[in-house]
């Protein structure tokens, strides 16, 4: 070591050679998020005659490791809208803070709160689209459940690409493959959804959550469920899946010829 402060604590040039500055990538391309890390799986939602039911399990996975088991992925906005988050959990936390600051600023206006679920979905879509256009996406697919400007049930999806669409029932991730067909049996179109009772809708969601727990290896039997109506939000965050059917497993032996 020499007497010059800039050399203190550094490997000695005379022993290790000069520091290879190319590792600093001082003039390489900017590197942004290229894959999610801690992730949440499916979010499910279905419209009924007075509102929307939405659910997501309480798991945040770290790859195939079920790392965090009490992660609440349904977030309430302005006491009128629920956003269900699938995908990267750190990006979900960023979005949560973004929405909460939007909420605060919106309330500063003298007219009071004016953002409904529809407005919020539009806002999120634009945030997602801006970020993917910067090649720095927020790695989520979200469902927005609430009421629109006319006080009718509102349900729509948006994701890391800024893609937006709406349907009487929606599911993200694995749920789109497994739960959506089940929910479509109950509410094939808007008309059917507008006749659906709350109990039927909750039942459909719970059944779908169960099917997902059977077949999705990144899912959990603890989940959150919210019923959004014009009267407010009923949010239950520590539900447990019930009535699972495993008794048949005893009867299964081998993979073909084994008798017992």
């Amino acid at each position, binding site marked *: 070591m020499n007497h010059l402060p800039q050399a203190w604590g550094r490997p000695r040039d005379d022993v290790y050679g000069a520091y290879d500055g190319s590792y600093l990538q001082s003039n390489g391309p900017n590197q942004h998020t290229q894959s999610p890390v801690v992730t949440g799986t499916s979010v499910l939602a279905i419209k009924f005659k007075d509102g929307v039911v939405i659910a997501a399990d309480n798991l945040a996975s770290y790859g195939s490791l079920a790392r965090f088991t009490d*992660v609440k992925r349904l977030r309430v906005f302005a006491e009128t809208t629920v956003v269900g988050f699938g995908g990267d959990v750190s990006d979900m936390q960023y979005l949560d803070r973004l929405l909460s600051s939007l909420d605060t600023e919106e309330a500063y206006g003298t007219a009071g709160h004016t953002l409904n679920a529809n407005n919020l979905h539009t806002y999120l879509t634009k945030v997602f689209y801006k970020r993917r256009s910067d090649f720095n996406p927020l790695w989520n697919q979200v469902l927005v459940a609430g009421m629109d400007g006319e006080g009718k049930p509102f349900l729509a999806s948006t994701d890391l690409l800024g893609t937006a669409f709406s349907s009487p029932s929606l599911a993200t991730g694995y749920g789109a493959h497994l739960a959506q067909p089940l929910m479509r049996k109950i509410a094939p179109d808007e008309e059917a959804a507008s006749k659906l009772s709350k109990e039927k809708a909750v039942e459909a969601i719970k059944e779908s959550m169960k099917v997902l727990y059977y077949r999705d290896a990144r899912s959990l039997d603890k989940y959150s469920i919210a019923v959004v109506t014009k009267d407010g939000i009923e949010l239950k965050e520590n539900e447990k899946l019930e009535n699972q059917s495993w008794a048949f497993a005893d009867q299964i032996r081998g993979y073909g010829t084994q008798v017992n």
Partner: protein
Amino acid sequence: MTSIGTGYDLTNSVFSPDGRNFQVEYAVKAVENGGTSIGIRCKDGVVLAVEKVITSKLLKAGANKRIATIDRHMGAVSSGLVPDGRHFVSRARDEAASWRKTYKTPITTKDLASRMGGYLQAYTLYSSVRPFGVTAIVAGWDSELELPVDGQVGSGPSIGSGGKVEGKTYGGPGLYMIEPSGQYWGYYGAATGKGRQTAKAEMEKLDLAAGKLSLLDGVKEAAKIIYIAHADNKDKEFELEMTWISNLDGPTKGRHQEVPKDLLEEAERLAKKSLEDEDDEEETKDDDDKPADEDKMEE
């Protein structure tokens, strides 16, 4: 002020020979002309009220709000130059937002008062700016519960103290008044503007330091005080604007909100009634005097 005319009052941030900043004292004069604002710290919340003098019948009732919300749990009201009050609020909102960005938790009333005190004081330091023409009252309720960090998703470890000391109380009501000099103190009851002396005298009668006044009574007292303070300025009509912040179990759940219309009207009715009762008492005194006079005349 014997030093007036000696040139020490022409520029901000200039010390007079006896160590005063006259420009700040002139700013205080602007405050003393403004409508009365008050804040009352109650055991389960805080009330803010302001007297808005109606300068024209063409002004829409209930419009032109003077009490502003900062974050969700604090309110601010000021007397003096209205635009300076707006600037104050705008800065306070920025401070609250930047606190949240850094610490992921709402700013306490005390910390906001400190930051705003620092901000106002900065406007006494340079000749290129003028001091604020407002005295502002900042009120808030700091949550008594352990709040989740903004954006928090899980619950964390279920064992351990969580950094809380047993037996110590956390959170509660906060009330601060910040003057053009940047000087600020915490108060049980704060008043500024034209009717501040009357308002202060009324608040001293309430024994606020005992911490027994309920928020609901505080609302009624605040309305009464504004009405009494307005008595010096009787020829002009005024509108009462009032907001409150309750504890988490209370009507506003720790949020800063306008006092609901029915409660405001009830408080105003009681305020007017108590003023009339006082007038009646004076009149009965006069009545007592009159027969005496008549007696004398008969003599």
